[in-house]
């Protein structure tokens, strides 16, 4: 009698790529709830629309590439990309913005490079940057947080939100407004303290901006869930947040009118927490070793701050991540861990002697 010949190890742990991806989606829920609570139904619609688009376009490409649909769709990677992009887009932005961004993410940034595991750049951020450059008006129109809506005005209800999204109409005035990073950037001639007193976005906030601080806390919570499930190591996110904090501390300029903002504002505004825990932790496009991730995370934190403080864009996570994606293979070459029995770390580029 003959048996099958199978190489070791025979045992396999319980983890699977689909489970990892699903957990990432679950971990976005605190952030999504915060977004929906403070900014209305828009984000939820974004996420749903992006997910649908992603699955359809992934299926189409897989069909063209002659790949088994069930096997590849079952890894949920397209859904993760879509959810992250949907969360990053402004609530109530027109439907075609969501669709174009998602198609770009899934088809161009991922599938054209070979599908899951082969994309050199973070697909969601590629889609986001394409949209930001192509449709700046739609991409910078943010909804006013719930707490700051004028008396008698409310966020559009679910049906009204759907109507706005699919008719591509801008929401009524009063419902839209600047983000904390945006208004901070465009307020000149005032010290930080004055801005914090005059702008209700800050004066009514606890940490860094009404609504936004909750969104960031939500993503922080999601990040902690993923960390405790060992989906990734702490190195990348902590290095990014620490560098961002350090930079904002160094250039705090004691809150003068030139100050780019406080440590708390930088940590809990914009896409800081989402970027730290959901974007730069994309393993495919990031560095591989723990030391590499420290450098990669720090680089992103550094770039985010530079662009926020002195660049043209109020937020910069997408740009910073894409720029760091470029550097990842380079960083990988010089950050190999020290292997057991070796006195030194080696370089990936070492030539063999012969």
């Amino acid at each position: 009698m003959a048996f099958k010949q199978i190489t070791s190890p025979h045992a396999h742990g319980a983890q699977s790529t689909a489970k990892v991806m699903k957990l990432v989606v679950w971990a976005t829920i605190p952030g999504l709830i915060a977004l929906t609570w403070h900014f209305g139904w828009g984000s939820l619609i974004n996420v749903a629309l992006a997910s649908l688009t992603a699955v359809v376009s992934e299926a189409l490409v897989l069909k063209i590439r002659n790949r088994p649909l069930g096997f590849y769709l079952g890894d949920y990677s397209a859904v993760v990309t879509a959810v992250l992009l949907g969360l990053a887009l402004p609530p109530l932005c027109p439907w075609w913005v969501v669709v174009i961004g998602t198609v770009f993410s899934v088809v161009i940034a991922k599938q054209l490079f070979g599908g899951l595991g082969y994309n050199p750049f973070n697909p969601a951020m590629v889609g986001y940057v394409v949209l930001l450059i192509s449709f700046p008006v739609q991409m910078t129109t943010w909804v006013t947080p719930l707490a700051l809506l004028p008396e008698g005005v409310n966020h559009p209800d679910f049906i009204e939100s759907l109507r706005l999204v699919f008719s591509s109409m801008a929401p009524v005035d009063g419902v839209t407004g600047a983000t904390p990073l945006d208004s901070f950037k465009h307020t000149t001639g005032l010290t930080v303290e004055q801005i914090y007193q005059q702008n209700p976005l800050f004066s009514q906030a606890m940490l860094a901006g009404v609504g936004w601080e909750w969104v960031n806390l939500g993503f922080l919570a999601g990040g902690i869930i993923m960390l405790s499930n060992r989906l990734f190591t702490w190195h990348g996110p902590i290095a990014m947040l620490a560098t961002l904090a350090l930079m904002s501390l160094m250039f705090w300029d004691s809150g003068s009118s030139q100050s780019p903002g406080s440590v708390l504002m930088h940590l809990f505004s914009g896409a800081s927490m989402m970027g730290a825990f959901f974007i730069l932790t994309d393993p495919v496009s990031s560095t591989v070793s723990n030391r590499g991730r420290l450098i990669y995370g720090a680089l992103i934190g550094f770039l985010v701050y530079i662009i926020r403080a002195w660049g043209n864009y109020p937020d910069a996570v997408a740009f910073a991540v894409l720029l760091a994606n470029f550097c990842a293979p380079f960083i990988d070459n010089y950050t190999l861990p020290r292997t057991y029995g070796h006195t030194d770390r080696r370089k990936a580029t070492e030539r063999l002697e012969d």
Partner: protein
Amino acid sequence: MRQTWVTPGGVHPPENKHQSLTQPIGTLPIPEKLVVPLGQHIGAPAIACVKLGDKVLKGQKIADPAGTVSAAIHAPTSGIISAIEARPIAHSSGMEALCIEITPDGKDQWIDLSGIADFEHTTPEALLSIITNAGIAGMGGAGFPTAVKLNPGFQRPIDTLIVNATECEPYITADDSLIRERAEEIIEGIRILSHILGNPSNILIGIEDNKPEAIKALEPHTLDTGINVVSFPTKYPSGGEKQLIYILTGQELPSGQIPADIGVVCVNIGTTYAIKRAVVEGEPLVSRVTTMTGEACEINRNYDVLIGTPVSHMLEHNKFNAEKCSRVIMGGPMMGFSLTSKDIPIVKTSNCILAPSVEEIPHNEPAQPCIRCGMCAEACPVSLLPQQLFWYSQAKDHERLQSHNLFDCIECGACSYVCPSNIPLVQHYRSSKSDIKKAEEENIKSAQARERFEFRQQRMEQAEKEREAKRAARREAALEAKKTASPNSAADIIAAAQARTAAKQMSPEQEQAKLQRAVSSAEMRVQKAQDKLDAAVASEESDEKLKILSAALSGAQQKLEKAKVRLAEQSN
């Protein structure tokens, strides 16, 4: 409590050890045929010293060790040699190799055994020779001939003897049950080892803390012996030699070195038991404790199994259900290999036969793409980057594979175990390792061929040049001769010929100097040949190589003799 160190990485697969520990070590009836492979150890396969039809007794030597790194083989029971031929053996490739088949006579009659009661007054050399002749090779899995390991040479003083009782692979309980039942004999074996190694200052039994009963069993026997039982947290693969050395001493074994280089000898605990039996009782290694486990067998327990027992015999006696079984593994679920045939025999290194059900170890899922999640790097006990190795392995980038320390991979399988994409990483590494080795061998071969070719080219060119020079000289001489004496008289020609011969002949002094040079260069060649042979003996080269080298030596010696004779003749 002795300090222990923590290795990076590692995994915690379900232990599944309790199933085989409910009953004590059992025995099986003698099978109809025993198939004893000649190569059960690392090194050269033993050479059969029996013939077809010979009657042998239990414990009788049936194969001699072939050279230093080899081990003797003994008849596991009394009977008749019924075949000496290639059979499938316990090897991950499913290959066949030379085996001796014994048809037992059912008497199980031992040869006359004589042991040494007082080993402390026996020289280490004598004890080593007993161990060699008892055919003992490492029983933890690798099967390195134990006597070689215990004889590291004076240039490598040993200060630490580590006895490996970690047994970190899931399911396997062979060492555990052996310790529980035969702790006293194990300790006796360790004392013999310690005596052989010149009583090293540290004697440590490394054991995972999931074996409290075994630890308890060892304790009364280690009192006042200087032997320390060191337990440490359970984690796979703590039982790897390199890992255990680090856990117990905090020292890393430098890449490419052996434990003796840092003063450590590491021996499996089952081996120490075999050493005790060999030295004190005079019993050669003819049986071992093997775990029979897995849901596809109704009975799970440990057996004292005769070497050469076919796996099918074990399976039948434990009510094996082939329908339920996903595969039959020799060894554990992490590093064991699947058997291609039920006829494969138990050998000295077989610590476990695992017959898991499909629910226990499902059939392999298709691999998904690598997403570089890095879980493998977190699990790697030697701090490699398995995900990078995987990429370079696919790309066949040998240079990158080596700069990422592929050859430090111990193939423990922790990376594949945690991989969420089900990628058979270890398989890729094994394949790359053999690819690289093959490429290196080919490089050496082609370099040698190139060298030979270039040397030949050079030699031919040189010869051609010399011929050309001679031709030119002759032409010139002829021209000269024509010029000076146009009508050549016979006398002139004879005179010229005589002059040439005289010029060619050397004076006696010159002749003697030449012969002396010949003698001294012959002496040098003898010396060189001797050095080469010594080096080969020291590095335990194959017998064939040694033969070639000693032939070269005696050739050089003969030439030296001849040169000396000629010199003597000349000076007379």
